[in-house]
C-alpha cells in the first residue's frame, strides 16, 4: 500500500513538471521515444508456426524524459498485450516499467528509482536493456556518483534488479551493492596534457545478498562478492586494456552434474591489444572465463534473468540473416577460453586492387574453447568440482568463426559488399540449434546496391549456406527498393534447399514495406519467419517460427 502511495506521489510531481515544461520552455525540456510492434499470427503447420490463442501479440513502450538544468526525470510506459511469441513470458500486461529522478551538481550526482549502469566491460556489473532480447535488468534503488577532483570518479549504488513485468515492475529479491572507482591519471596528474601515454585505472566491488534458496541440502552463501580491476592504456596508435574479475563461491542449480551447486570461485580475464592507423587497424582480444555466472538469485530463473554481470562476447556481431540467426555465438556460462583477431585494411583508391574509390577489407577470426578442467571428486565436501588454470584450454571447441568482408564502390551507381563466413559450431555444448552435434558450415553473401538516381535505389542481397549437418543447405535472396526519403519495399525468400527431409525444403517468403518521415517510421511485414536464434553480444533468444502480419512503429521527439 505504501508503495502505491509513493508511486502516485511520483506521478503527480512528475506530471506537474511535464505540464510546466510543455507550457513554458524555460521550465525544462521534454523528450522521449516510442516503439510499438504488433503481430497477427496465422496457422502454418508446415513450419510449425506459433499460433497463440490470442492470435495477436503486441510489445510497445514509450520513454518520456524531462530535464531542467541538473535535474532529470523520466518514465517508461510498457505494454505487452499479449507478449510477442519468443519474448520472455515474464513480460506481461501494461503499466509503468521504469521511473527515475536524478540531479547533479558540485561533483555529486544522485539517481533514485531505476537506472542502468556498467563497470568496465560489464563482467562484474552491467545493468542494461536489450529490448530485442527481452533483457532488462535495470537496478531499482539509489546511485551516488562523486568526483572529488578532476580525474577521480567514484560511484556507489544499491538496489534490486528488475525481474519481470506484470502490469507493473517486479524486482527480484536479491539486493545488489556496488562501488566503483576510476582514476584517470592524465586528468589527475597531467594538467598540461603533455603525456603521450594515456592511462586509466579502475576497480570495483559488487556484492549481492539473497535468501532465494530452495535447497536444504547445501549451505548457501547469502552474501556473495566479486572484485574487479581494470586498466586502459593508450600510447599513440597502440592501445591496451585489461580487466580481471574474481567472484567467490556462488552455487547455482544446474542440469550438468559437474556444475550443479558448485562452490568454486569464478574468475574472468579480458585482454585487448590494438593498433590503428589511417587505413589499417589490427585488434587482438583474449578472454579466460570460468564459472562466472553471476545472478542476484541462486535459484533457477530464465537464462537472461537477473544477471548482474555480462560476459563479453569475443566475436563479430553479424547482420546478414543466415550468419546471424542460424548458428550464432552464445557465451558459455560455464566458462570459455576465447580469442579474436580483427584486421581492417582499406586498399587505397586509384590502385589496381583498390579501384577508383578504394576497397575495404575486414578479416575476423574468433574462436572459443572449453577450458581445460581437471575434475576432482569433492562433491561431498568442498564442491569445487574441478580445477583450471588461466588460458589453459581443452581440445573441445565451442565455436570458431572466420569471416572476410570486402566492400567496394564500383562506380557512382554500384556498391558491392562480399562476405564469406566459415563457422565451426559445437551445438552439443551451445545447444541453440537443437542438433547437439558439431556443425561445420560456410556462407557466402553478395550484397549489391544500385543507385538508380538521387532518390531511388535497388539493393540485391543473396546468401548461400553449405553444410552437411543439421538442416543442411540454405539459400536466401532479397530485393529491396528504396525511394527516399520516405518509402521502401522489400521482398525476400529463405529456402532450406538442403534439408534431408524433402518435406522440409520450405520457402520462407516475406514481403515488407515501410514509410519514414523524419523521426517516425512505420513498417508492415507479411510472411513466414523461420525459427532461429537471435543473439546480441553472445546473449541469445530463441525466435519461434511464425506466419502472419507484423506492424511496427518507432518515433522520437
Amino acid at each position, binding site marked *: 500500500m505504501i508503495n502505491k502511495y509513493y508511486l502516485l506521489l511520483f506521478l503527480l510531481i512528475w506530471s506537474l513538471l511535464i505540464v510546466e515544461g510543455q507550457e513554458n520552455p524555460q521550465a525544462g525540456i521534454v523528450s522521449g521515444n516510442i516503439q510499438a510492434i504488433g503481430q497477427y499470427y496465422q496457422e502454418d503447420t508446415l513450419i510449425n508456426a506459433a499460433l497463440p490463442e490470442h492470435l495477436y501479440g503486441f510489445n510497445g513502450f514509450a520513454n518520456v524524459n524531462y530535464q531542467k538544468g541538473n535535474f532529470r526525470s523520466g518514465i517508461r510506459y510498457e505494454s505487452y498485450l499479449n507478449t510477442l511469441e519468443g519474448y520472455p513470458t515474464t513480460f506481461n500486461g501494461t503499466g509503468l516499467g521504469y521511473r527515475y529522478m536524478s540531479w547533479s551538481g558540485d561533483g555529486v550526482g544522485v539517481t533514485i528509482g531505476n537506472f542502468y549502469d556498467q563497470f568496465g566491460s560489464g563482467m562484474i556489473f552491467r545493468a542494461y536493456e536489450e529490448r530485442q532480447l527481452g533483457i532488462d535488468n535495470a537496478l531499482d534503488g539509489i546511485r551516488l556518483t562523486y568526483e572529488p577532483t578532476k580525474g577521480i570518479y567514484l560511484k556507489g549504488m544499491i538496489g534490486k534488479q528488475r525481474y519481470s513485468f506484470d502490469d507493473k515492475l517486479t524486482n527480484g529479491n536479491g539486493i545488489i551493492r556496488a562501488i566503483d572507482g576510476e582514476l584517470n591519471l592524465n586528468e589527475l596528474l597531467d594538467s598540461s596534457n603533455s603525456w603521450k601515454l594515456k592511462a586509466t585505472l579502475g576497480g570495483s566491488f559488487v*556484492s549481492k545478498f539473497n535468501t532465494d534458496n530452495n535447497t*536444504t541440502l547445501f549451505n*548457501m*552463501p547469502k552474501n556473495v562478492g566479486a572484485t574487479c580491476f581494470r586498466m586502459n592504456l593508450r600510447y599513440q596508435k597502440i592501445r591496451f586494456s585489461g580487466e580481471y574479475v574474481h567472484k567467490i*563461491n556462488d552455487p547455482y542449480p544446474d542440469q550438468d552434474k559437474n556444475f550443479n551447486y558448485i562452490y568454486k570461485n569464478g574468475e574472468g580475464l579480458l585482454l585487448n591489444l590494438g593498433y590503428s592507423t589511417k587505413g589499417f587497424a589490427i585488434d587482438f582480444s583474449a578472454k579466460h572465463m570460468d564459472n562466472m555466472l553471476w545472478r542476484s538469485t541462486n535459484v533457477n530463473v530464465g537464462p537472461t534473468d537477473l544477471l548482474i554481470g555480462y560476459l563479453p562476447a569475443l566475436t563479430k556481431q553479424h547482420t546478414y540473416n543466415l550468419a546471424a540467426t542460424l548458428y550464432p555465438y552464445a557465451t558459455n556460462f560455464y566458462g570459455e577460453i576465447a580469442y579474436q583477431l580483427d584486421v581492417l585494411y582499406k586498399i587505397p583508391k586509384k590502385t589496381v586492387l583498390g579501384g577508383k574509390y578504394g576497397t575495404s577489407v575486414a578479416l575476423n577470426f574468433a574462436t572459443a574453447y572449453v577450458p581445460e578442467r581437471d575434475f576432482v571428486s569433492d562433491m*561431498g*565436501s*568442498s564442491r569445487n568440482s574441478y580445477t583450471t588454470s588461466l588460458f589453459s584450454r581443452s581440445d573441445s571447441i565451442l565455436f570458431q568463426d572466420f569471416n572476410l568482408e570486402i566492400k567496394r564502390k564500383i562506380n557512382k551507381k554500384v556498391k558491392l559488399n562480399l562476405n564469406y563466413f566459415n563457422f565451426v559450431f559445437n551445438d552439443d555444448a551451445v545447444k541453440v540449434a537443437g542438433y547437439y552435434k558439431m556443425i561445420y558450415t560456410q556462407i557466402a553473401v553478395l550484397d549489391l546496391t544500385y543507385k538508380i538516381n538521387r532518390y531511388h535505389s535497388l539493393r540485391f542481397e543473396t546468401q548461400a549456406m553449405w553444410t552437411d549437418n543439421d538442416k543442411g543447405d540454405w539459400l536466401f535472396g532479397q530485393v529491396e527498393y528504396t525511394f527516399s526519403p520516405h518509402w521502401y519495399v522489400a521482398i525476400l525468400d529463405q529456402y532450406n534447399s538442403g534439408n534431408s527431409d524433402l518435406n522440409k525444403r520450405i520457402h520462407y517468403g516475406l514481403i515488407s514495406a515501410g514509410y519514414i518521415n523524419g523521426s517516425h517510421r512505420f513498417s508492415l511485414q507479411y510472411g513466414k519467419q523461420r525459427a532461429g536464434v537471435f543473439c546480441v553480444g553472445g546473449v541469445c533468444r530463441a525466435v519461434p517460427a511464425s506466419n502472419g502480419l507484423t506492424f511496427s512503429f518507432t518515433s522520437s521527439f
Partner: protein
Amino acid sequence: MKKILIPLLAFFLFACDKIESPVAEEYGKFDWSFFPGDPADYASNYYDIANPQNEWGENLNEKGILLEDYTGHLCTNCPEAGLIAKSIEEDSSLNVIVASIHASIDGGFQETDALFTNNYETEAGNEYVRGSEMNGFLGNPMGTINRNDGGLSNSVWYLKSQWVSGVNDENDNDSLNINIQIKSFNFSQTNGLYVHTETSVLNDLTGNYHLVLYLIRNDVISPQKFDQGIIDTNYHHHAILSDNINGTWGTQIINGAVLKDSVIYNDFSYQLPDPAIDLSYNVENLSIIAYVLNRDNMRILQVVNEELE
C-alpha cells in the same frame, strides 16, 4: 575521511559468505564422501532428506522385543544361552530380535589368542556392562529383555534361565507408544551406508528418548569354547553386535514432552568395514537393529531390524 572510508571498504570487502562446508548437516552428520556421486543426486535416486515425509508409507511394524545376549567366545556356558536366545527369536509370535554382545566386566571371556583371533568386543558393549547406568551385571552369559527391570534383583540383567519367562512377560505388555521404520542404502564402491529412520509417536510422551542403531553381523563362523575344553572352530556366532552406528547411547530424539502423532526423522551415514578384508562384513550378512530407549529408566520402547541388501 579515513574514518569513513576504512569501515566502508571493510564492510564491502567482508560482506561475503565464504562457505567452507557446502553440504548442509542439519539432517544428520552426513559424510557424503561415502556416496559415490553428487549428494544432489541422492534425493532423486535414493532418499529425499529435505522432504522425508514423502519417503515413508504406513508403519506396519508390530511391537518388538530386544533380547541382548551378553556372551564371549571363551565362555563355556554361553553357547547354551545362545541356543535359548535363538529359539526364542525363532518363535515368530514373540517378535524377538537378538543381539549377541561380546562383553564382560573384565573382558576375560572375550580375550583373543592364536586360536581365538577375533575380538568381538565393542566400545558400547563394554560400556553397557561396565558403566554405571546398567548396574547389576554378574558375568556371561546374561541378557537384557527390552532393558526392563524385571531381571535379577530388579535390574535389567536376566540369567539365561529367566529369558523365556522374561520375554513372555514383556510380550504380555503389548502397549506400543512409539514405532520405528528403517531404510538403508549401501554403496560397495565406498562401503558407505546411509540409514534413514522414521519414528512415530503413538501416544503423548514426556522424557528423554534416544534412538540407537546397532550394526549386526548375522552369522560369523569362528571358534567357541565349550565345556570340558572343547573348542568348536566352526561355531556359528549369531547376530553379533559389531558397532553402534550412532554411538553408545544413540541420538536423542525427544527431550521433554512430545505429542501423539508427532513424527521424527533421522539420517545417519556410516562406513562399513571393508568386506575384502573381513568377509563377515559382506552386506548380505549384515543387518541393522534400531531401538528407542528411554534414557531415564533404560527401557526400550520399540525395536526393529532391517537386513542390508
